[in-house]
């Protein structure tokens, strides 16, 4: 706990704090908002914070972009290679994959919302819940089990 008030620790790790704030904002939106589109937006914010978290891991202090200093004949200057510190490109590649997955999820979610809108005429979660509860109640009444020894 004493570390939280250590200014050097705080400024060195402030980006983690911001990522967590963004993450929790995204999760809160998913849980709290009843509009289905807003839930998808919250999910996107949540995923964006995770992407930022990953990319921040890749930065090496004093590192430059991870590209070989080649000329257009693919020749690498061997002396220029000495002493260059590169940032880690792997987290960037992982995040590229995760971004594509996020896009696929978002578009699928939006497509489902369009179908739900056409089917239920609303995209508010509470209204949909009410409609579904009515449907279930109708089903239960219609198919009320005759030999209800348990209920």
């Amino acid at each position, binding site marked *: 706990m004493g570390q939280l008030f250590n200014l050097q620790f705080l400024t060195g790790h402030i980006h983690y704090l911001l990522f967590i704030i963004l993450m929790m904002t995204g999760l809160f939106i998913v849980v709290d908002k009843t509009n289905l589109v807003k839930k998808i937006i919250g999910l996107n914010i949540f995923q964006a914070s*995770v992407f930022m978290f990953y990319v921040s891991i890749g930065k090496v202090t004093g590192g430059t972009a991870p590209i070989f200093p080649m000329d257009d004949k693919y020749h690498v200057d061997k002396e220029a290679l000495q002493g260059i510190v590169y940032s880690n490109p792997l987290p960037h590649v992982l995040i590229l994959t995760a971004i594509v997955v996020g896009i696929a*999820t978002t578009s699928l979610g939006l497509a489902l919302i369009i179908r739900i809108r056409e089917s239920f005429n609303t995209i508010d979660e509470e209204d949909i819940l009410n409609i579904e509860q009515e449907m279930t109640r109708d089903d239960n009444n219609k198919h*009320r089990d005759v030999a209800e020894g348990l209920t």
Partner: protein
Amino acid sequence: MANTALVAEHTARTLYDHLPLLQVLVPFCAAPLIVLLGSRRLAWPLAFVSSAVALIISVMLMMSVREGGYISYTMGGWSPPLGIEYRIDTVNAYVLMLISAIGTVVLPFAYVSVKDEIPSKNHSLFYACWMLCLTGLLGMVATGDAFNVFVFLEISSLSTYVLVAQGAARDRRALTAAYDYLIMGTIGATFFVIGLGMLYMATGTLNMADLADRIADQGANRTVRSGFAFIVVGLGLKVAMFPLHLWLPKAYTFAPSAVTVFLSATATKAALYVLMRFIFSVYHPDFSFTTNALEIIFLPLAIIAMFSASFIAAFQINFKRMLAYSSIAQVGYMLLGIAILTETGLTAALLHMFNHGLAKALLFMGVGALVLRTGGAFYTQISGLGRKMPLTCGAIVVGGLSLIGVPGTAGFLSKWLLVQAALERVSENSLFLLVSIAIVLSSLLAVVYVWRVFEVLYLREPNPDSTATEAPLMMLIPMWILAGSCLWFGLSTDFLYDIANQAALGLLDGSMGMLDSNKTLGVE
């Protein structure tokens, strides 16, 4: 200028070397091929042939690793830990066999069921999605790289959301079920990615064997521990662990019958495999926090799941919904087997994965046949069909008995081993006596809800205006193949027991160890 001294010696790979990859590649290529050909008539045969090939490959892989050891396949020739590797050992091959077997056996059933429940213009895309789901599940299990697990997890999850939403043709609640599943599943997968990011921060590698070594070197610092927490929660959502199971009842009830058969037997099992892999191979069970997490979290949640889900299942009036809640309870048994943390417990969990897959697929197939003939799965709609559809209901009886764990069916051995595992640990902690009593009591609850089905099917008069006849042959054959396997694996248990025991020993052995790198097939 060709300078051959710079190029390493290379021996050509044989088809046998490529097997771990072909396991995933065959269904993966079938999906775009189905879309490209666009023909409705070719979609099902293509899907069936590639599933059958995947099954053959998985059996061949199982035969190679039956006695222990592992096969490693390097993608792109980059040897691990730099490159992605597919790593098949006994646990892997066991789950691969289950998934591809269920995938193949269900397809003839799906041919009839899908024609009935889904508009025909969607059929070729439906089978393409099915193949993508199969690819994702197989890839999730076959791979030895942690981020690759996430990629395949998302491939299978996204296709699952689409497949579940296809039930909207019959009941529009399938759309909201798919939407809820999407939100919860994506949150779960993102939690998994966060945990993985923490592991990467702490160790610098993503290869599961290398992760195991580096975590063992480091000991348990806060990053590694929070990574574990995130990964367990994320995967727990996919496995339908107790408080994270809310997506399952609706998704299984409103999805098309063929989809429910496929998903109930494979999706949670593959995620459970990944969970086991992370708990046992990546994080060694000797880590105190692993044992603590398992005992304090898994054990109570598994027992609550077993009881509450069985209890809710007993009150259902819809056969499909009842089976969905029963699935949650059965996952509780598997988690209990993991939490008991002995060799017998782990063998029981692995055996129960297989047996539950068989029994649930069989039962959901029965439901599908009943839905085909009567249009619904409510008890009032299916009452008395025991006489009109004798073969279907006979298969349902076998599946129900296997679910309860009656001796002679496959379910018995796993429940028996579970109780035995709990009793093994009584000497060190007498609470485990309560655990074993809990297992027996919840099995009695299972008897309640299964007996209710038997009563509805056999002891009631059929509806006077029902025109139900026996299910078509393409549905009956897969059902009776699965029923036969339930009985066969119940009576001759050695094959599965040996494999599951070997797999459990391999898991408990812990760190996968990069030291035997001479076993890899990559270029040196």
